[in-house]
């Protein structure tokens, strides 16, 4: 029997260190995935794109904010796998998978209506308008659950100041992208697309109102409203429009999507208010994800600093 001498390995076939390390990482994660599957972890969790797709999406230069709460932060896994995002699905567990390939670049944001100069901005220009801050906010859904999320963004008023709205502008309207090809939920008529939300100008100028593009120090996952969303911690979650493509300044009050869908159930203001029930369920308590017992819901979700915006208003009428 002839034993052939092994040929020299050409250098082109030697695996580079980076690849080699990647392979190790891949094997490790594959082993973990296997172990997890054996342990009975739902496939959905494994299929979650967030951990992989966002590995290198750290946001640099994030400043701390005095608006942040010290309450326990909800795990990233929960915030990125439990999403009310009807553009993708009415099932809260589905957007994480369905938004996986959603394209957030190129992306433009149109600023129009009653402004000095109408403009179409690249989303990356918008994001760089001000220093990113981490705002750890409580977030209360109208359905009665809540989370604590370290969002990344800056006060909406930074953008508004640069947009130079005219004196006549009394409201700001946000519109979510309409793209049924990418957003399967928009292929049905569950809501009147595109999703529209709005704020009164003084609400929009309040420093708590956050123009958001990240969470947990990283770029927003698609299912959490990438590339650009609002976060309004004193209002029910649905007021915080996601995947924003247009910010418009108007004289008359915008008709927000949920208000159009069920005017007796969802108002324009939709401030978190334990004393005003949803017509079909109580708003007095909420379940913080991860907690067993319910906790009392706080007026304005505990953000008392906004109370002066509504002084003299009957909040039962303007719910």
């Amino acid at each position, binding site marked *: 029997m002839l034993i052939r001498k092994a040929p020299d390995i050409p250098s082109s076939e030697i695996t580079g260190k980076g690849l080699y390390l990647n392979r190790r990482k891949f094997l490790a994660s594959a082993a973990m995935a296997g172990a997890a599957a054996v342990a009975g972890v739902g496939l959905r969790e494994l299929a979650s794109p967030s951990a992989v797709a966002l590995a290198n999406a750290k946001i640099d230069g994030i400043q701390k904010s005095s608006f942040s709460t010290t309450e326990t932060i909800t795990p990233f*896994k929960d*915030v990125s796998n439990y999403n009310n995002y009807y553009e993708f699905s*009415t099932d809260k567990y589905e957007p994480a998978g369905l938004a996986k390939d959603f394209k957030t670049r190129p992306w433009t944001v149109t600023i129009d209506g009653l402004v000095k100069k109408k403009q179409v901005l690249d989303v990356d220009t918008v994001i760089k308008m001000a220093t990113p801050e981490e705002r750890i906010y409580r977030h209360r859904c109208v359905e009665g*659950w809540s989370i604590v999320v370290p969002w990344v963004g800056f006060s909406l008023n930074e953008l508004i100041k640069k947009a130079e709205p005219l004196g006549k502008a009394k409201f700001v309207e946000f519109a979510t992208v309409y793209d049924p090809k990418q957003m399967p939920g928009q292929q049905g008529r569950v809501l009147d697309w595109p999703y529209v939300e709005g704020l009164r100008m003084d609400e929009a100028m309040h420093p708590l109102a956050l123009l958001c593009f990240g969470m947990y120090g990283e770029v927003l996952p698609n299912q959490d409203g990438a590339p650009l969303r609002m976060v309004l911690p004193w209002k029910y979650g649905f007021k915080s429009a996601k995947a924003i493509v247009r910010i418009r300044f108007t004289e008359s009050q915008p008709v927000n999507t949920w208000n159009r869908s069920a005017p007796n159930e969802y108002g324009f203001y939709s401030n978190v208010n334990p004393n005003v029930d949803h017509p*079909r369920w109580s708003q007095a308590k909420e*379940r913080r*994800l*991860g907690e067993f*017992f319910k906790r009392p819901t706080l007026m304005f979700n505990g953000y008392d600093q906004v109370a002066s915006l509504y002084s003299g208003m009957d909040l039962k009428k303007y719910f």
Partner: protein
Amino acid sequence: MKVSWFKPVVFLACLIPLARLGWKAYNGALGANPIEVITHSTGDWILRFVLVTLAITPLRKLIRQPWLIRYRRMFGLFAFFYAVLHFLTYIWLDKFFDVHEMLADVTKRRFITVGFTGFVLLIPLALTSTRGWIRRLGGKRWQALHRLIYVSAVAGVIHYVWLVKADLHKPLEYALVLSLLLGYRIVSWALPKIKTRPAGALQPKRVNVPEV
């Protein structure tokens, strides 16, 4: 199916939804809001079992499989079983036995009112599901009482319709199946009366278990 092992197998199969919930809960795989998952899952299974129960009579007549009747009580009792779990989830994990809050719910919130009604109506049916009770009440009266399942099923579907925020797809699927099943009964009740040919032509033969 007359084979003796079949009934226990069906019985165990009916426990799979509960076993799945238990297994997932044990492994922490119920997602971000486990209590919501438990509430919705048990609720779904009540409706499914009610519909399966209501499908027995039409099925056994349409496909001429009289043995199916022997599974009706079991499916009905499983509907009740999941209803008890659903109700327990509500009074324990949602309301934490706060009677005041529950009373407010039942009187103020129509989706709770109608759901609660549907549940309460199932109780006498579960209690009188035994052979002894059929005998004691007599076929006719037993049958009349057990027609409450129609009301309970409608209440259950309305409970679901009134609960959702905007997406009516799932509750309407239940509503569609239920209306077919109730429609069958209306037709089979009305048809012999309308037709000129001798009554009884379409009337099924009476069997020892009363019709519902």
